[in-house]
């Protein structure tokens, strides 16, 4: 009869904490609709991997080794799907919006600095900082390439805060902008972006970022490959597959695979709490720096920019753009900022992938 209570007796309090965390993630995914495609598999996986003598460990470890440990293949394939989803049209219509994507990456670097000051090693600090990329695949690639000891907590924190963007960003925007600034109107001239420009753009981005930051090519290259498939006009069937079937399939496995790193002994630590705090800093400073750049530009520019557009520079796509549009409409129901916000938002997607590659190159 011993076998009946052998497993129960082996349960540790840390594992029970992990079950609670897993259940919380499932609750947030189902009840609050927070990144359900990832939080639900991660939550279930967290329970699965933290049952003593878990028979699922074999399959999860194999998935992890093949999909993430060996060349980070899963997140990179997911990037092809993301690239196929993105329309760079609003950004190409107003290329100045690129600046906000760049500025909103400052949170990443400031968090690296804070994490290093908190005593994390430089590889771990860089991996924690990349939470500020607000981009799951980039976080996975950087943390895994730099062999961080905290891949699990970093993933959970990154996806949780991405889901919390609708709470974090409005608070920061309201604290750092005045009502008058939020009321600034911006005309949108849907300047016809030619097909040639749309096709050449992903190739240009790949070449330029490759020449300046070659380590970023794994991320930027996959993203731009997906976008080229979308824009070329002769591979619609592949574009559809990439943005629907491929992205869904990888997402399905990614969540449960990441959960392999959520073992109680690695997860229930003080460092996880610190990572949660630092991740929040990253998101706050990303938003803050985007807004500040818009304010600085407004000091010199004739045509004023609504500072909320700067906040959309983080790559949480398309949540961030939607938040800016919502807040703009709340202040003035006739002020539509969506297209500008989308432009800044997709530029954040490119800039965060470049930032990830740069960090790998500079730290690795």
């Amino acid at each position: 009869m011993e076998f009946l209570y052998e497993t129960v007796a082996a349960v540790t309090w840390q594992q029970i904490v992990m079950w609670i965390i897993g259940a919380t993630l499932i609750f947030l995914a189902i009840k609050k609709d927070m990144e359900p495609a990832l939080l639900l598999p991660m939550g279930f996986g967290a329970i699965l991997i933290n049952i003593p003598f878990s028979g699922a460990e074999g399959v999860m470890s194999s998935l992890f080794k093949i999909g993430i440990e060996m060349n980070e293949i899963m997140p990179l394939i997911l990037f092809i799907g993301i690239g196929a989803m993105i329309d760079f049209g609003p950004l190409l219509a107003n290329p100045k919006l690129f600046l906000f994507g760049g500025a909103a990456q400052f949170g990443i670097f400031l968090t690296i600095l804070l994490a290093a000051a908190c005593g994390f090693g430089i590889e771990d600090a860089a991996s924690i900082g990349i939470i500020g990329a607000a981009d799951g695949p980039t976080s996975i690639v950087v943390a895994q390439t730099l062999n961080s000891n905290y891949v699990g907590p970093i993933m959970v924190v990154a996806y949780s805060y991405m889901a919390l963007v609708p709470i974090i960003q409005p608070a920061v925007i309201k604290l750092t902008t005045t009502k008058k600034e939020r009321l600034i109107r911006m005309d949108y001239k849907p300047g016809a972006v030619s097909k040639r420009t749309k096709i050449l753009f992903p190739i240009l981005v790949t070449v330029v970022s490759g020449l300046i930051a070659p380590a970023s090519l794994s991320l930027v290259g996959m993203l731009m490959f997906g976008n080229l498939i979308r824009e070329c006009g002769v591979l619609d069937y592949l574009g559809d597959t990439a943005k629907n079937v491929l992205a869904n399939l990888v997402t399905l496995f990614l969540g449960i695979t990441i959960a392999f790193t959520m073992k109680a002994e690695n997860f229930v630590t003080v460092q996880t709490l610190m990572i949660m705090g630092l991740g929040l800093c990253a998101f706050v400073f990303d938003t803050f720096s985007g807004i500040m750049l818009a304010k600085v530009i407004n000091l010199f520019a004739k045509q004023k920019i609504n500072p909320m557009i700067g906040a959309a520079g983080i790559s949480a796509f398309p949540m961030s753009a939607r938040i800016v549009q919502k807040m703009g409409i709340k202040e003035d129901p006739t002020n539509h900022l969506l297209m500008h916000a989308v432009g800044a938002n997709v530029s954040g997607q490119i800039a965060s992938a470049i930032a990830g590659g740069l960090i790998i190159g500079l730290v690795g």
Partner: protein
Amino acid sequence: MKYIFSATCAVKANVLKSLEITGYGMLAIFIVIAVLILLVKLMQYSEKIAEKRKSAEGYKSFKERAAEKSEKKRGRKEIGESDDENN
């Protein structure tokens, strides 16, 4: 005491390294962005000029000009041949 000192030194080294990463990282991002903005603007500018030239009166595309040239050449050849026959 020795441990605290070495730990402090390690943190200091990491902070300095992260400052370096911040400097180089932000600089590189903005260089990439600046180059991209320039290239996109250049692309759009060249397209605008091409559009203008196309809409201008008497505009002939490269194909049309090439066809015209080859026709002229052929005409000259034919004249030459007929001159030879006359002689």
